């Protein structure tokens, strides 16, 4: 029995998603708790619908270029750690689609969102249906134990809200990804997203407006984002757990050093990507 939401998602995918993408998606292994949903709310029809809508932005608007996607492990648990910016998490959407497009066999990443996201009406449901999980150690730990590919943004809200003048300067770099990587023996693939940091210029920030728990309300200079070109670069996987026991994940010094290693790798990739591009729109 199909609900109205599932039927709508299916129809969107049938209308907008080319056959090759549908066939590719059919090959993605998705967890199913019995009714077509996993414990976090992921559903295949919704993934197809998000792919159908997102591909227009991915192909036509941001013209995403992928470099080094072969570094993403084809199977098993892994963490993608990327820089984060752009006022709204369009970079996460582009990374999500890029992973699905450029992995063989195709893999669906599980983006990790900030804790306030489940409070947002509509957004929370759409995110959950398309594979996003709220950022907590247990949620991510269980995903890694089940062999999932987790997409993490260690800069968090500080990254997405960074001022234009701070673009491509990594903000606070949380260490949870390194801890989880050591504990769950998962390699970390550093990812640099070039382009997103110029997509939107924030005019002002309404700090006293906390809609549904959001830390602030950003007001953009222009309503649509600039049609910058995205370049997504993947580095070689970092095996942070090499020579470490799972219990070392409780050692703050080891975890910080491992997280700093990931940060350096992302910074190096960002520098490479910025050097290689010919302009923000090309």
């Amino acid at each position, binding site marked *: *029995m*199909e*609900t*109205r*939401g*599932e039927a709508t998602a299916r129809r969107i995918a049938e209308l907008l998603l080319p056959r090759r993408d549908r066939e590719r998606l059919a090959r993605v292994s998705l967890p199913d*708790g*019995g*009714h077509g*949903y*996993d*414990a*976090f*709310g992921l559903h295949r029809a919704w993934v197809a619908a998000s792919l159908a809508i997102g591909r227009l932005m991915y192909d036509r608007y941001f013209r995403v270029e992928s470099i080094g996607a072969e570094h993403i492990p084809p199977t098993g648990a892994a963490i993608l750690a990327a820089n984060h910016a752009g006022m709204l998490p369009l970079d996460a959407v582009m990374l999500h689609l890029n992973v699905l497009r450029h992995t063989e066999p195709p893999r669906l990443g599980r983006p990790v969102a900030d*804790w*306030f996201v*489940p*409070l*947002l*009406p*509509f957004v*929370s*449901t759409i995110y*959950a249906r398309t594979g996003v*999980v*709220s950022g*907590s*150690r*247990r*949620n991510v730990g*269980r995903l890694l*134990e089940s062999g999932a590919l987790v997409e993490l943004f260690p800069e968090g809200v500080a990254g997405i809200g960074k001022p234009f003048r701070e673009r491509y300067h990594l903000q606070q770099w949380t260490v949870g990804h390194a801890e989880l990587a050591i504990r769950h023996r998962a390699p970390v693939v550093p990812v640099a997203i070039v382009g997103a940091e110029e997509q939107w210029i924030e005019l002002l920030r309404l700090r006293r407006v906390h809609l549904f*728990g959001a830390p602030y309300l950003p007001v953009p200079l222009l309503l649509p984002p600039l049609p910058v070109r995205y370049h997504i670069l993947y580095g070689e996987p970092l095996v942070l757990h090499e020579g470490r026991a799972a219990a070392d994940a409780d050692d703050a010094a080891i975890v910080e050093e491992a997280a700093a290693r990931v940060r350096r790798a992302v910074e190096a990739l960002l520098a490479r990507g910025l050097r290689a591009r010919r302009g923000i729109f090309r």
Partner: protein
Amino acid sequence: MNVLVTGATTPLGAATVRGLLALPDTGHVVGAGADPWSPLLPPRGARFSYVESDLTHRRAVRSLLGGPVRAAHVEAIVHTALHRSARASGRRVHRLNVDATRALLELAADHPTARIFVYRSFAEAYHVAEDVPCLVGEDHPLELAPDEPQWVRDRAEADLTVCSHLGSSPLRIVVLRCAELFAPHAGSQLYDYLRSRVCLRPVGYDPMLNLLSMEDAVRAHLLALARPVEGVFNIAGWDTLPLSRLVALTGRVCLPVPGPLLRPLYRLRRAFVGAQFRYRMNAPRFHLGGVLDGTRARDELGYEPRVGIVWDDARRALDRERPSVRGRRAARAA
């Protein structure tokens, strides 16, 4: 093994009694309940006896353990007696939910034959919030907010009472935090919610839920008795689904309504048809959901959900029990 099952006249208690009697290595089962008898129970016989006992009095608990339980050489106690009605509140309800649990534990610890204590707890005792995982492990915080209804507070307090004896009691204690048992008269809030033809949910939210079938609940209790384990285990159900799908499967109409309107609307429903469903109690999970992580039960208890809800049966049962003002009056008169 000889077993005492409290709350034996409830659907879960009676099903546990039947499940125990179906096992060849079960000796004698003593059922205890506040009612004189229940048609759900098997007939009394050589392997089953029933004792009417009001556990809200400590003296009754003492008499039960020192009398029929001692005489039957009961080795294990399965405690499922708890008030199911969300309408019930007050000191007497607390005495059954919490004080009786404490008394049973304390008296069983000094009992000459009892050595296992299995407590049926509730996933509803877990705290649901945006800053805690939606995948709920055994170390998840319990709901201890003072403004919560007694239905929730008692469940959390009773659970903590049992947990506080873990490791210090001579008994082997197992706490089974069961997902919502989706069955009639089992105290399920969702079951009562679905008795209406039109089910309202907050617009913009479609949370994930996990439901437990009676068969799986009974199997978890039997495994807790049989396996040499101790501690707290989440007992997840086979059905993991969003609220909208649940409503559709039961043949109801799902109507998204702005969140702030739901509480007064469901209060009206409660006032007119005497329903059990309390929106206030369910509001966090109607926004954020929460699914039990049953990994520990799988690894240590050997429990994995196997039996889903039979939706056709559920739909028919719900259709028969649709709430109405006339039904409320009849229930009051009865």
